[in-house]
C-alpha cells in the first residue's frame, strides 16, 4: 500500500494541511500536493475504472499524460468530469469522485465486461453494426449504452467566469524546464519580446527531481536565479499553469491558463485562453516516458518509473514498501536510487538489456540493489493491487525463472519527445533508432506565410535527453530564432553533470517471444482498454494503415490522445505487419495538447454578451409593454404583445383583428435598407433582380425578387426609385448584410468598371408600418404637408414630407393587404414618432402588432416569406412568381441557371393554398402523402407545407405549401401527415385567402 513518508517532498508544505474528500471519504493532504499524490499518501491506489472493461486502475503517471486517474471534481455548478488527478492541485475542501463504476469503485458490476473480453475485440463497435438488427437492439445496445461516455456530463450552468486574452510576441517558448528557461534567457537577452509558458505550477521540469547540478549547484538554485533574471527583463513575460494547447497557421498559438483551479476562493476568471500571434515558437516541451508491454501492466501499483520518482522526491510519497523497477534504459535506475535513498526496498531492477555498465547502474549495484540483466517480467500478480511479479528471460517466451513479492512496479520503456506542438502545423518527424523515438525533423519544420520555418524544438522535445545538452539546445534554439527575427543573440549555456549511460535498447514486448495468452494482458492504451492483441488482430484483419488501426481499435483516441500508448502501439503494428516503425508512421497530432475547458473556449461570449444584439429605436418601448421577443438575425423583434391574462395565441389574434378592423402599428425598423446609387445603378439593379428595375419611375415602388447564380430565390423586397441615379432597396430583416455583401461582391469582382456605389443604411432609419382602414385618418390627424389621398399617393407610390412635425418618407406598400403606409424617419426620431402615432391613434384603438400577426396577415394574402416558402432550393417559378421575372432582359443573376433542365421540370412542386376540411391547423413541416413507397420502402410524398396558421380573420386553418402539379389541382383534397401517424385532409385552393381583388389595400 502507498503511504506518506516521514520526511522529504520538495513541493509539499507539511505545516499546511489540506482537507479533501474522495467518494465522500474525508482525507488530508498538504499544500503542494496534487490530488494524485494526496490520494497515494492516503493509501488510495485504486483511482478509477477503465472505459471498456471497467478494470480497476491506479495512477500510472504524475503529469498531463495520465490516462487512468480521471476524476469528477467539484459539485453542482462547479462540477467537472474527467479531470486528471495528476494535474489537479490540492486545495482545502476539494471534492473528488471516481468514474466509470457502478455501484462502487471497489465493487463494479460493469467489470463483467472484463470476463466477456473475448467478445469485445478490436473493432467491436464496427462489428456490432454488421449484425442483424435484433442483435443490436437486444444484445449490444444495452451494453454500449451502459458503458458509453466517460464521466458524467455537468447538469448545472457553469458558475465560473472565463476570458480570452490576446498577445503578440516575437518568441513564444513553450515549456519551463531547463531547456525552456535557458532559451528564454538567451532570447530575452537579444531584446525580442518573449513569452515563456509552463503548464504546471513549478519551473525546471525534471532536473530538480533527477538530482541535476547546474554550474556546480543544485538545479533548484539555478532555476530560481534564471527566473529572477527573466522577471527582471521588461521584454519577457513568464506564466506558469499555462499550457500551450495548439500551434496553428502563421504563428497562431492557443494557450490555456488555469488561474483559480488550485485556489477556488480567489477572485477573477477561472481559465484564460491566450490567443497569441508569435513570429517564432520554441517547443521545449520535454519528453514522456513510455510504459513497457508486459502481462498485467495495468494493475494498480504499476507506474512509470519517472512518476514513482516524482511521488517520492516531490511529494514524499511511497508507492509501497517494495518496488520492482523494470527498464530498458539507465534513467529508471534513478528511481531505484531515489527509493533506496528514501529507505524503501527495491528487491530488484529488472533490465531487459544483456549488459549494463553505466554510472547509474553501477551506483545501484554499489547501493546493494540487485540488478537482473537480460530479464523481463513474465506477469504481474494481483487484481486490485500489485502483490508481486514473476520474472523470465527477456529473450524467451515467458517461462518463469523467479518470483518477487512487491507492492509496486516502476517501469520505463524509454522516452518519447513531446512533438505535438511541432507537428500541429505541419512539422514532420524523423525516426531516431538509437533512442527508439520519433523526434522533429529539422529540415521539415512548420512554415509560415513567408515559407520559412517558425517552430524550433529544444531540449528533450528535440530528443536531447542529457541536461548539459538540453541547456545548450535551448540556447542554440534561441540564437537561431533571434537570427530569423533579425536580432543578434549569443549562445551560452551553463555546465551540468550528466552520468555516463549505457544506450537504451528498444523493447516493445516483454518477453520478446510472448504468446497470445500474455499479449491479451498487455495494455497499450489504458483508458480505452486497447491491448497488444487488439492491434495485432487489426493488422490481421487488414488494417495496415496506422490511421485505420487507430480508429478500428480506438488506440490513442481517449482523452489522453495516446500520449503513453502511441509509440508502443505503432511498434506493435509494425511488428505485426513485419515492417519498420518509420514506414508505419504516426497518426496525426491534433490540438489541444491536453483537454481544455469549454468555458475557456467560450470566454466572455455567454449569456447577455454571447453575441451583439441589435435593437431598434423602439426596443425599450417593446420591453416596457412586456412584448414577447424573438430573434430575427441579430435583431430581437416583438413576436406579440400579450396583455395580462392573455396567451400568446390570444394576443396574436387580437392584434390581427385590431389591425384588420381599425389600426395596427408595426415596428418595421429592422427591414434592410440599402442605397444603390450611380450612373450605372439601373443597369446593376437589372442584374440583381429578376424583374426590370431600370424602368421604374422616380417616386414609385416595385416589388422585386433577387436570386443567386444558382437560380434560387435569395431575398425579396420593395425597391423605391428616389431619383434617376438612386434606388432604395428594401431587404428582409435578416438579409440586409448578406444582400449588401452580395451586391459588393458583384460590383468589386465582376463589374468593377460600372459606376455604382452601395451603402447599407438599415440602422439610419426607424420605420413604422401604419396599417388598417384608419391608417390615413391617423396620419392626417397628426398633420402633414403631403397629399396622402389615394389619387395623389396611390398604392406603390412614395412621398417625402412632414407628418406631425417629423421628417418622413412615406411608402404606400402593404404586406398585410390593408391600407398601409410604411413611414421612415431618422433613427434618432423613431421612438418619438412611434409615441406620437400611439397617442394620436388611441381613438382608433391603435394596436402594436408583432411578427406573428405580420406573418398571419401576409399568409392570409398569399404573400411569400423568404425562409418559409424558400429554403435555398426554391426558384421564383415554383412560387407562382413568374410575373416578377422579366422576359425582356437578356441577363440577370440566376437567369441561366433557371434554364437548366431540372429547373424547368414540370413536375417541380408548386405553391398553392391549403384549407383544412375540418378547420384545424396542419402541423408545421407536414408532407402530403402519396400512394405507394419509394425504393427505400418509405412512403411517397407529393408536397410539403411551407407556412401554416390559424387565420383569425377567416376563423379556420390556412396553409401554403408546395404540391406536385398543385396549381392544376384546385379543389382537390389531399392528406397531410401528422406526428401521431394519422393524416389531416386539406383542400387545394388559391393561396390568396383574403381580399383577392385588393379592395381593402388600394383605397
Amino acid at each position: 500500500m502507498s503511504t506518506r513518508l516521514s520526511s522529504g517532498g520538495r513541493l509539499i508544505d507539511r505545516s499546511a494541511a489540506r482537507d479533501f474528500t474522495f467518494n465522500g471519504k474525508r482525507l488530508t493532504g498538504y499544500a503542494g500536493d496534487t490530488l494524485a499524490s494526496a490520494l497515494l499518501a492516503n493509501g488510495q491506489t485504486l483511482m478509477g475504472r477503465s472505459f471498456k472493461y471497467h478494470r480497476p486502475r491506479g495512477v500510472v503517471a504524475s503529469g498531463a499524460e495520465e490516462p487512468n486517474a480521471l476524476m469528477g471534481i467539484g459539485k453542482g455548478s462547479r462540477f467537472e468530469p474527467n479531470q486528471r488527478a495528476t494535474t489537479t492541485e490540492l486545495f482545502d475542501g476539494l471534492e473528488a469522485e471516481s468514474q466509470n463504476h457502478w455501484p462502487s469503485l471497489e465493487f463494479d458490476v460493469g467489470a463483467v465486461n472484463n470476463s466477456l473480453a473475448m467478445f469485445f475485440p478490436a473493432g467491436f463497435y464496427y462489428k456490432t453494426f454488421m449484425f442483424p438488427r435484433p442483435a443490436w437492439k437486444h444484445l449490444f445496445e444495452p451494453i454500449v449504452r451502459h458503458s458509453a461516455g466517460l464521466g458524467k456530463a455537468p447538469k448545472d450552468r457553469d458558475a465560473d467566469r472565463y476570458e480570452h486574452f490576446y498577445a503578440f510576441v516575437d518568441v513564444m517558448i513553450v515549456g519551463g524546464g531547463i531547456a525552456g528557461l535557458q532559451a528564454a534567457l538567451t532570447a530575452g537577452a537579444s531584446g525580442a519580446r518573449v513569452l515563456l509558458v509552463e503548464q504546471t505550477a513549478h519551473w525546471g521540469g525534471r532536473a530538480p527531481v533527477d538530482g541535476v547540478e547546474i554550474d556546480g549547484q543544485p538545479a533548484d538554485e539555478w532555476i530560481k536565479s534564471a527566473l529572477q533574471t527573466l522577471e527582471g527583463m521588461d521584454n519577457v513575460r513568464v506564466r506558469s499553469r499555462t499550457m500551450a494547447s495548439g500551434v496553428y497557421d502563421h504563428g497562431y498559438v492557443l494557450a490555456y491558463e488555469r488561474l483559480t483551479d488550485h485556489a477556488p476562493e480567489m477572485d477573477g476568471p477561472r481559465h484564460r485562453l491566450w490567443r497569441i500571434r508569435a513570429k517564432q515558437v520554441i517547443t521545449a516541451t520535454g519528453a514522456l516516458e513510455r510504459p513497457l508491454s508486459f502481462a498485467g501492466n495495468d494493475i494498480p501499483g504499476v507506474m512509470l518509473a519517472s512518476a514513482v520518482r516524482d511521488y517520492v522526491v516531490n511529494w514524499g510519497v511511497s508507492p509501497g514498501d517494495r518496488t520492482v523497477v523494470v527498464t530498458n534504459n539507465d534513467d529508471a535506475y534513478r528511481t531505484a536510487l531515489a527509493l533506496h535513498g528514501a529507505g524503501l526496498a527495491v528487491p530488484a531492477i529488472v533490465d531487459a538489456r544483456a549488459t549494463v555498465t553505466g554510472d547509474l547502474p553501477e551506483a545501484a549495484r554499489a547501493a546493494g540493489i540487485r540488478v537482473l540483466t537480460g530479464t523481463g517480467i513474465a506477469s504481474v500478480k494481483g487484481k486490485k493491487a500489485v502483490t508481486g511479479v514473476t520474472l523470465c528471460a527477456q529473450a524467451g517466451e515467458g517461462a518463469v525463472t523467479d518470483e518477487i513479492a512487491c507492492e509496486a512496479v516502476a517501469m520505463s520503456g524509454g522516452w518519447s519527445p513531446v512533438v505535438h506542438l511541432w507537428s500541429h502545423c505541419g512539422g514532420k518527424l524523423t525516426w531516431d533508432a538509437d533512442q527508439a523515438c520519433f523526434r522533429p525533423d529539422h529540415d521539415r519544420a512548420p512554415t509560415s506565410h513567408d515559407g520559412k520555418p517558425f517552430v524550433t524544438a529544444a531540449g528533450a522535445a528535440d530528443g536531447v535527453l542529457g541536461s548539459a545538452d538540453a541547456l545548450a539546445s535551448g540556447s542554440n534554439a534561441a540564437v537561431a530564432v533571434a537570427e530569423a527575427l533579425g536580432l543578434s543573440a549569443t549562445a551560452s549555456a551553463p555546465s551540468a553533470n550528466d552520468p555516463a549511460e549505457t544506450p537504451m535498447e528498444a523493447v516493445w514486448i516483454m518477453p520478446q517471444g510472448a504468446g497470445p495468452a500474455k499479449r491479451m494482458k498487455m495494455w497499450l492504451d489504458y483508458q480505452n482498454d486497447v491491448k497488444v492483441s487488439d492491434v495485432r488482430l487489426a493488422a490481421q484483419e487488414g488494417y495496415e494503415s496506422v490511421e485505420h488501426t487507430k480508429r478500428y481499435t480506438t488506440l490513442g483516441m481517449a482523452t489522453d490522445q495516446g500520449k503513453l500508448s502511441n509509440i508502443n502501439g505503432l511498434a506493435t503494428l509494425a511488428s505485426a505487419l513485419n515492417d519498420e516503425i518509420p514506414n508505419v508512421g504516426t497518426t496525426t497530432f491534433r490540438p489541444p495538447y491536453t483537454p481544455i475547458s469549454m468555458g475557456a473556449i467560450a470566454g466572455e461570449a455567454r449569456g447577455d454578451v454571447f453575441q451583439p444584439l441589435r435593437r431598434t429605436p423602439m426596443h425599450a418601448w417593446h420591453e416596457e409593454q412586456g412584448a414577447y421577443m424573438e430573434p430575427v438575425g441579430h435583431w430581437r423583434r416583438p413576436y406579440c404583445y400579450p396583455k395580462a391574462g392573455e396567451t400568446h395565441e390570444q394576443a396574436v389574434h387580437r392584434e390581427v383583428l385590431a389591425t384588420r378592423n381599425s389600426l395596427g402599428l408595426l415596428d418595421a425598423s429592422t427591414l434592410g435598407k440599402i442605397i444603390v446609387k450611380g450612373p450605372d445603378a439601373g443597369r446593376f439593379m437589372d442584374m440583381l433582380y429578376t424583374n426590370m428595375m431600370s424602368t421604374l419611375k422616380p417616386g414609385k415602388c416595385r416589388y422585386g425578387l433577387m436570386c443567386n447564380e444558382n437560380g434560387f430565390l435569395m431575398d425579396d423586397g420593395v425597391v423605391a426609385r428616389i431619383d434617376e441615379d438612386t434606388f432604395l432597396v428594401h431587404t428582409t430583416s435578416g438579409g440586409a448584410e448578406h444582400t449588401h455583401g452580395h451586391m459588393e461582391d458583384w460590383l468589386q469582382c465582376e463589374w468593377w468598371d460600372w459606376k455604382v456605389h452601395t451603402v447599407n443604411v438599415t440602422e439610419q432609419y426607424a420605420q413604422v408600418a401604419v396599417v388598417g382602414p384608419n391608417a390615413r385618418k391617423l396620419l392626417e390627424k397628426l398633420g402633414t404637408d403631403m397629399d396622402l389621398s389615394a389619387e395623389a399617393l396611390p398604392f406603390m407610390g412614395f412621398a417625402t414630407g412632414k407628418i406631425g412635425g417629423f421628417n418622413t418618407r412615406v411608402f404606400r406598400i402593404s404586406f398585410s393587404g390593408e391600407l398601409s403606409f410604411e413611414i421612415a424617419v431618422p433613427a434618432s426620431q423613431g421612438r418619438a414618432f412611434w409615441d406620437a402615432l400611439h397617442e394620436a391613434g388611441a381613438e382608433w384603438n391603435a394596436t402594436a402588432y408583432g411578427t406573428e400577426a405580420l406573418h398571419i396577415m401576409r399568409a392570409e394574402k398569399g404573400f411569400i416569406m423568404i425562409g418559409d416558402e424558400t429554403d435555398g432550393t426554391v426558384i421564383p417559378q415554383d412560387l407562382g412568381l413568374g410575373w416578377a421575372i422579366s422576359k425582356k432582359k437578356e441577363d440577370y443573376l440566376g437567369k441561366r441557371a433557371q434554364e437548366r433542365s431540372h429547373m424547368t421540370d414540370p413536375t417541380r412542386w408548386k405553391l398553392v393554398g391549403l384549407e383544412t376540411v375540418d378547420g384545424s391547423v396542419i402541423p408545421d413541416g407536414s408532407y402530403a402523402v402519396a400512394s405507394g413507397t419509394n425504393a427505400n420502402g418509405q412512403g411517397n410524398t407529393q408536397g410539403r407545407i411551407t407556412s401554416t396558421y390559424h387565420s383569425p380573420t377567416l376563423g379556420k386553418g390556412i396553409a401554403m405549401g408546395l404540391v406536385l402539379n398543385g396549381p392544376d389541382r384546385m379543389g382537390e383534397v389531399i392528406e397531410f401527415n401528422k406526428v401521431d401517424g394519422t393524416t389531416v385532409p386539406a383542400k387545394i385552393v388559391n393561396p390568396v385567402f383574403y381580399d383577392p381583388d385588393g379592395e381593402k389595400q388600394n383605397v
Partner: protein
Amino acid sequence: MLILECPCCGVMADETELAPGGEAHLKRYGPGSSDEEFEGYLFHRVNPKGVHFERWRHANGCGKWFLAARCTNTLEVFATYSAQTPEPPQHVIDAIAARRPNWSIEA
C-alpha cells in the same frame, strides 16, 4: 488562422477579419452559354495541393474583396492583389515562380 495583407487598406488581417470567397479568376457564363460551360462555371473548382488563387473579403475591415495566391499545402502566401483583374498579374506569377520553380499557371 491565416494572416493576409489586405491590398486595399494595407492591414495585415487576421483570418477572423476575413471572409473566404473560393476560387478566383472564374469566368462568368450567363444566358446563351452551353450546359457544359455553365456547369463548369457554377460547380467545377480546382482543389490543388499547392498554388491556389482565391478570393477573400476584408469583411470585418475595409469591406473590400481581394485575391490571394497561396500554397494550400505549406500555407505560404505568395501575394495578395486587387480583385479587379481577370487573371493573375505578372508580378504575382513572378513571386510564385521565385518560390516554386516547377510551377506553371496552366497546370
